């Protein structure tokens, strides 16, 4: 690239050749108005012509957003001729435009309004009476007033090219042209995913945020940048605050993970904050009923009960369930509370139920149980092996990177999934394995790779151990053998193996479809085996990438809300570590590994655990075999629950403490790519609710342990001191883009991808794993295989998403997906009520007949308490990670009469 000379408005400028005039002017500090162009997305259709400029020697004005500069170009951006042309263009745009800025939601942020103002246009000379297009208010989130549309095409570009959602386009011709959704239907009925990005880019008031109507003008809002509390992507955005209330969420282009993208939950799912049914005071159960209480009363009661249980039955009869929805600081405090105040290592959280197999498996293979690479690297991978992750619905922002890799960068995508997930559309190859046969499939792939000599011999020799044993095992798994086990054609196994092994960079991405099995740890070990075999770890755009579910499930693990480790995965059994924490906290600590979630509930069921403190978790919905779990909670002698709503779990509590939402507290969350990011307090706690970090330290104080902090920043200081991987983290350093651990000290800039020259454990360890069947398989009585998952519009047990008006409107009820052939045999029609029964329970829900589910497989999401999928699931555990088998159990289905 060479620098050239140009003259803009009589000023000389040196600029890179090929830059557009628009960008050149920007560099010179001159603002040219634009309507259609979005340079940040490489979109400049040159259609609106509001950006025209005069180039000396050119007969006509040119659109500056598309015109590249050449040596010696002489440009006028605001000459009389230019202004006249712009004014004319504007008047044409305004000819059909309703002049109702005074009530338009967009006012104050509308390019058309701003231009009309600066050109002093009150009324267009070309006014027309175009037929009015009826307002489309059918979407719960977006209002479409196409009479205001200027046909810039931005929304179409975003929806089709950037998001690949393909919901909208131009339709009709000449004066009838308008934006259509699908076959010109209401937005609600189209395939629109309600991400709302079109609302962000629309320069005028044609597309607006429905829930924010009338809540305030753009200039009235205070914006607070924070991190989304739904999924592990860790998107950032601005909370818009007016008069102490959250009015809406808007994109913040400075967000490192997501830019201006957000999914429907992040953008439109925060109305639960101001719900009337938030818990506002502590509640104590008296004579079977909850009664309002003061904090003092509640603390007093908890303190005396816990102390009594401790004295009478020992420390280990108490347990704490922490939360992947709470901040890092709160997780740290909770595990400290458990260990230092209660004196037990019985602390765990719901990661046990989603990714404990990852933590166990990857720690064994690599020495560190987290996503090895970063989200942004996915787009540059040359091959992607995606398995057990319905990324589009569960990690929407990561799905965008996958689609970008395929559509823009030519990556080959292999999807291995029993369900026909959306990303299958982008796949070169789809392997539809029978649920629960992943180990066999991985072994088959490795068999082909070794057989055809495609393994990375150098990597294996220098950086790994245990290869010979692995080889011996996988040699048995020829594609033909594996076809018999998995149902995947041998030829496809060969093709997939070749694609993965020969790609310069291959990224393996997985999620709960891999972990939630009795063979969860084996599955994870297999992912590591495959990646090491081909040298795909420790380099950019490759790696083994588990997508973590909840917003802070990574952080909750990092901070030691686990029964066997302190923060930073420092073992409770290591005497040196024990001494370090003991000294820092000023108490003696137990070196006995504690119980996991499922074990805690089992112990409670048997009466061995007597007191439980649960913070922002809902085991009465999320546990497998719910009837058993609920009974365990009922039997718990003294149960304390802190949450923001009356959850299914809180119903069983003796004391309920009102916590707060992320809008009401400071802290940090760690997303799935190990990025520690800030959450910022934007409004005061509702009612008498308190931030969880306060609740925990005040309770500790009450129980006679000195735990006091002025703010979460101080807690982070303590974390950094005791936790090597968080060693360099402090609030000031997190301000802009956060930091990815390991971040050893204040000079360390964080780690983009792990295991670069050396694995965390030294050498990578291959583990030979044999295929084992799932714990419960379909049989004569229960002939169908039942598997569970999530949908885009809800989160986890639905505690908050189901309290979001729009989200619940769009997805109000549970459904069971059944393959058409099974449906036919069972004489079930689409939308029939069906009864699904397993050995453990029975539920009713509507049937959805779809090819998405393979023959013999039924699928259901677990968000709905009125049809709780986990009443059916099997609590059989993986022997290492103790993760329950949510993904496979046997059921029977019949029409409900």
């Amino acid at each position, binding site marked *: 690239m060479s620098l050239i000379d140009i003259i803009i408005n009589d000023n000389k400028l040196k600029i890179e050749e090929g830059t557009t005039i628009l960008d050149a002017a920007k560099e010179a500090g001159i603002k040219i108005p634009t309507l259609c162009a979005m340079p940040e997305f490489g979109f400049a259709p040159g259609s609106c012509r509001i950006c025209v400029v005069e180039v000396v020697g050119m007969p006509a004005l040119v659109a500056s957003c598309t015109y590249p500069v050449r040596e010696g170009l002489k440009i006028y951006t605001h000459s009389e001729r230019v202004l006249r042309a712009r004014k004319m263009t504007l008047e044409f745009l305004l000819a059909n435009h309703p002049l109702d800025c005074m009530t338009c939601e967009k006012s104050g942020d509308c390019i058309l309004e701003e231009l009309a103002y600066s050109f002093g246009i009150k009324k267009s000379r070309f006014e027309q009476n175009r037929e009015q297009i009826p307002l489309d208010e059918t979407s719960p989130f977006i209002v479409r007033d196409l009479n205001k549309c200027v046909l810039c095409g931005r929304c179409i570009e975003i929806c*089709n090219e950037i998001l690949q959602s*393909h*919901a*909208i*386009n*131009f*339709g*009709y*011709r000449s004066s009838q042209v308008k934006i*259509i*959704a*699908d*076959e*010109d239907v209401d937005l609600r009925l*189209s*395939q629109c995913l309600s991400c709302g990005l079109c609302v962000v880019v629309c320069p005028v008031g044609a597309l607006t945020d429905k829930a924010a109507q009338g809540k305030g003008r753009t200039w009235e809002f205070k914006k607070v940048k924070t991190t989304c509390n739904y999924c592990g992507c860790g998107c950032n955005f601005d909370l818009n605050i007016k008069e102490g209330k959250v009015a809406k969420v808007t994109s913040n282009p400075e967000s490192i993970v997501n830019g201006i993208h957000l999914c429907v939950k992040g953008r439109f799912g925060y109305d639960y904050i101001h719900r009337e049914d938030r818990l506002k005071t502590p509640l104590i159960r008296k004579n079977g009923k909850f009664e309002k209480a003061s904090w003092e009363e509640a603390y007093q009661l908890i303190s005396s009960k816990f102390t009594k249980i401790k004295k009478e039955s020992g420390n280990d009869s108490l347990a704490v369930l922490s939360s992947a929805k709470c901040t890092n600081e709160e997780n740290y405090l909770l595990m400290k509370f458990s260990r230092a105040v209660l004196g037990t290592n019985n602390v765990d959280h719901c990661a046990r139920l989603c990714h404990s197999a990852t933590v166990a498996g990857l720690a064994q293979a690599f020495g560190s149980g987290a996503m090895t690479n970063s989200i942004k690297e996915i787009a540059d991978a040359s091959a992607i092996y995606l398995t057990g992750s319905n990324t589009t619905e569960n990690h929407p922002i990561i799905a965008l990177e996958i689609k970008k890799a395929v559509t823009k960068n030519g990556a080959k995508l292999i999807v291995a999934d029993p369900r026909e997930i959306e990303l299958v*559309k982008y796949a070169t190859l789809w392997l539809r394995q029978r649920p629960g046969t992943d180990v066999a499939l991985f072994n088959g792939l490795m068999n082909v790779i070794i057989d055809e000599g495609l393994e990375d011999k150098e990597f294996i020799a220098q950086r790994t151990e245990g290869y010979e044993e692995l080889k011996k095992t996988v040699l048995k798994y020829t594609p033909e053998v594996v076809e018999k086990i998995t149902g995947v054609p041998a030829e496809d196994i060969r093709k997939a193996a070749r694609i993965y092994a020969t790609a310069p960079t291959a990224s393996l991405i997985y999620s709960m479809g891999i972990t939630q099995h009795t063979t969860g740890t084996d599955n994870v070990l297999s992912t590591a085996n495959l990646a090491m075999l081909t040298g795909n770890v420790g380099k950019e755009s490759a790696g083994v990438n588990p997508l973590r579910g909840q917003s802070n499930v990574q952080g909750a693990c990092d901070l030691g809300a686990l029964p066997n480790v302190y923060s930073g995965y420092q073992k409770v059994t290591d005497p040196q570590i024990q001494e370090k924490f003991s000294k820092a906290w000023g108490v003696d600590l137990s070196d006995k590994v504690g119980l996991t979630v499922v074990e805690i509930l089992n112990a409670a069921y048997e009466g061995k655990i007597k007191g439980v403190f649960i913070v922002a978790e809902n085991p009465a919905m999320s546990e497998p075999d719910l009837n058993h779990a609920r009974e365990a909670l009922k039997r718990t002698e003294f149960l304390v629950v802190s949450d923001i709503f009356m959850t299914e779990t809180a119903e069983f509590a003796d004391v309920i403490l009102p916590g707060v939402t992320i809008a009401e507290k400071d802290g940090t969350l760690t997303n799935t790519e190990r990025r520690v990011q800030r959450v910022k307090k934007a409004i005061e706690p509702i009612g008498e609710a308190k931030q969880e970090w306060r609740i925990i330290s005040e309770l500790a104080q009450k129980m006679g342990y000195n735990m006091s902090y002025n703010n979460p920043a101080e807690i982070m200081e303590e974390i950094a001191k005791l936790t090597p991987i968080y060693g360099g983290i402090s609030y000031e350093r997190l301000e802009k883009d956060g930091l990815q651990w390991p971040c050893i000290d204040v000079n360390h800039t964080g780690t983009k991808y792990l295991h670069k020259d050396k694995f965390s454990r030294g050498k990578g360890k291959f583990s030979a794993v044999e295929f084992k069947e799932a714990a419960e398989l379909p049989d004569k009585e229960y002939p169908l295989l039942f598997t569970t998952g999530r949908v885009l519009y809800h989160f986890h047990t639905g505690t908050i998403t189901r309290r979001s008006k729009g989200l619940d409107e769009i997805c109000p009820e549970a459904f069971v997906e059944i393959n*058409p052939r099974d449906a036919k045999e069972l004489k079930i029609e*689409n939308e029939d009520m069906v009864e699904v029964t397993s050995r453990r329970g029975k539920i009713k829900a509507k049937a959805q007949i779809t*090819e998405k589910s393979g023959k013999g497989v039924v699928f259901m999401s677990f968000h709905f308490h009125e049809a709780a999928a986990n009443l059916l699931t099997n609590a059989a555990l993986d022997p290492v990670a103790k993760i329950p088998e949510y993904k496979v159990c046997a059921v029977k289905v019949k029409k409900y009469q």
Partner: protein
Amino acid sequence: MKQQVDNLQEEFTLEQINELNEIIEKYRVEPGGIIPLLKETQDLLGYLPINIQKQISDKANIPLSRIYGIVTFYSFFTMTPRGKHTVKVCLGTACYFSGGKEIAETIEGEFRVKSGETTADRIFTYETVRCLGACGLAPAIVVDGEVYGRVKPSKVKEILEKYK
């Protein structure tokens, strides 16, 4: 998908559907543009109703909004079926006042169609036009290019019966 095929079968023969699937397959393997694909489909079926557009969208993995956008943009695509015969009734000034309006009303009542629609039995596609340039013959109608002049509203039915 099965349900969709059932829907299609109400309107088209199995042969037509199979042929359509072949066309789609051809363009899927060797992408040659959406417009030729739609054109070939319309040549086969006569028109492009929504369920056909959906079928193409599903099978060829082309967004429905894209297809619909194209179909509504180019005037040679049509979403209503064409009848065997086309009846044009002139509603230009001369014809309108000398009985054209009544002719149109008669047809609309008799055959239960609105302008641009096709009769349920697919015999006639009915259109209204502005001045055929045959004002001397007002009121005029044209059936498959053949002009009928000075048509009495009461005779319209008789004229059309011949084409059935």
